């Protein structure tokens, strides 16, 4: 979906767009190439889908290239991905050879565009080796790590580090995700698109259709957690918190997410959740397809309180999405949830099902708190976590990197 930049003016205001256009003027005509490993599916493709056209609209000569590979290559890159996130994975020499051969084949195809680019942004580990192959590069190369590589499995990191060290800069979502590297490491948190299917305003008829479709009672409070069925999201802990609250308040719970069908661990978690839910008609466990964006949007909007009771978390964009819908969030005191949920302002951070139950009960008794925190949460996201901030930071870091600016202040 290509939305023109002007469509965001009503959401972020004219000043924000004016700043982006000022940055665009400074960078007009520069050739920017994004490279990742998939055109569809996954957070990175979602970002590049809006970022590339907006960069073009701002006057940059931006393009998005995708590397190709066979299933063996993607098995290897999946293992590298898991290894970087700390899993103990064995990647045989043959596996690394497959990775390098695929990089070489892709480089042959992409060579002219990569050699000529002023800025090349390589997303995640799959295409990271392209820099080593591009010996006649004339531009600056930036490695964008979308994943948490703070505690990698060392043998995997050792190989990847040799590939990413020669980059001119790297980008991480949070300081906690980064590793020491011998070049500037910028911090750019992710963002949400307020006009996407998952976040745009929905007419009340569509909300009501989802409400009745899942048999939710409009007269009773609704707790919603949207996340994969993954132990780190603690869905069983959410059910436990719900049960503690249910004794004293007529709440309903929706646990909705995907990722269980092709993932044995996810399947086991889903079974545990279903067992914990038993036959309670007020617990709705929904296994949604990956493209159920509008349903997720509606469920978040129907919620009284959003839960994200993770025990480990990346940035936690589901928290951002919930806050954008004007809801307070009760979230686990981990990862990027800490950046977003501020006690008594946008919700509450908790460590246990008991803590979650306590805060749910508190909020249910303080409707004005729900309203106030929801409003603050939405404004907090507007200020910090929309795609306009994201693109401003990309443009700024391109400017700083291209001009090799060392000063701590840059006038646009």
């Amino acid at each position, binding site marked *: 979906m290509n939305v023109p930049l002007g469509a965001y003016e009503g959401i972020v205001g004219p000043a924000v767009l004016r*700043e982006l256009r000022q940055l665009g003027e400074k960078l007009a005509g520069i050739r920017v190439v994004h490279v990742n490993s998939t055109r569809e599916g996954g957070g990175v493709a979602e970002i590049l889908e809006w970022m590339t056209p907006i960069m073009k609209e701002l006057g940059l000569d931006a393009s998005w290239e995708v590397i190709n590979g066979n299933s063996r290559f993607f098995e290897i890159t999946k293992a590298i991905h898991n290894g970087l996130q700390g899993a103990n994975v064995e990647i045989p020499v043959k596996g690394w050879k497959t990775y390098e051969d695929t990089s070489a084949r892709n480089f042959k195809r992409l060579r002219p565009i990569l050699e000529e680019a002023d800025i090349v942004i390589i997303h995640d580990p799959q295409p990271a080796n392209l820099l080593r192959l591009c010996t006649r590069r004339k531009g600056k190369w930036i490695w964008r790590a979308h994943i948490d590589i703070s505690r990698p499995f060392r043998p995997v990191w050792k190989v990847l580090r040799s590939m990413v060290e020669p980059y001119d800069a790297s980008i991480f979502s949070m*300081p906690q995700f980064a590793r*020491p590297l011998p070049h500037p490491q910028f*911090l750019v948190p992710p963002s949400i698109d307020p006009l996407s299917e998952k976040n745009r305003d929905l007419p009340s008829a569509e909300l009501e259709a989802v409400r009745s479709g899942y048999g939710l009672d409009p007269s009773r409070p609704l707790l919603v957690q949207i996340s994969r069925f993954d132990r780190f999201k603690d869905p069983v802990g959410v059910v436990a918190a719900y049960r503690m609250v249910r004794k004293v308040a007529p709440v309903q719970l929706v646990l909705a997410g995907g990722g269980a069908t092709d993932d044995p661990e996810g399947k086991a978690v889903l079974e545990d959740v279903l067992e914990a839910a038993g036959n309670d008609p007020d617990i709705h466990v929904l296994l949604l397809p990956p493209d159920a964006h509008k349903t997720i949007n509606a469920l978040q909007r129907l919620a009284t309180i959003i839960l994200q009771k993770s025990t480990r978390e990346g940035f936690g964009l589901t928290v951002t999405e919930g806050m954008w819908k004007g809801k307070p969030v009760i979230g686990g005191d*981990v990862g990027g949830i800490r950046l977003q949920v501020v006690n008594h*302002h946008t919700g509450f951070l908790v460590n246990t099902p008991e803590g979650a139950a306590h805060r749910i009960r508190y909020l249910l008794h303080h409707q004005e708190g729900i309203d106030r925190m929801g409003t603050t949460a939405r404004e907090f996201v507007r200020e910090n976590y929309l795609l306009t901030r994201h693109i401003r930071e990309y443009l700024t870091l391109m400017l700083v990197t291209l001009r090799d600016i060392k000063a701590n202040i*840059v*006038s*646009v």
Partner: protein
Amino acid sequence: MTPFQVKDCALLARMSGLPPAINLRELRERIAACSENVLFHHFCETTLRGTFDNPDYRNDFAVWSKLYLGDRVLAERLGILDPYEFSSLGELRAATLEVIDERLGESTMIPWARPGDELYFMEATTVVFDTGIRISRPREFAAAIGAMTGGSVYYHFLEARRRPPSGKDDFTAWLLENDDGEKNRPYIEALARIDFYFHTLVHLRKELVRVLSALEETK
């Protein structure tokens, strides 16, 4: 008279290259070794983050001491440090180290954070935008500041103090430059009376508007 040019700003954060601190001794070592840009980020640029009304402390070291080292005494002593009271960041660093050394001397055990709660040292590049808005007369300041973003208030009233040669906020510097027979003196004095460091940007903007509007009303 050159009109006052209203600017806006945003930060681009990056890692400082220092390892994170997990305990009070490491915090001391990192503060002793970090660049002034890092110190400025954790003491002054914090105000550009978030918009909440009652943050306990305005610098990251005090917040971390309270939340993750669990040392409220240290948090209170660090929290009261006003970076703008020091004539240089070097002096601010010395004062910060003094507070930490005092606490280390009092402690029988070094306070530690849990793994995952380390303090990360960062710095930032400030990106400055011209808003195209101009102010021509001192009496226009109150209304213009009332309409400014937090970034503009920060850039002109706080960040400006770091910029040589004046070390003053931009409003005062402009009023001094364009003072005709001391007419601007009341504005300059009113701005100088604001105890600004412990305000959020939202409150600081309100306070600026309040003191400047009060001057107009007394005329």
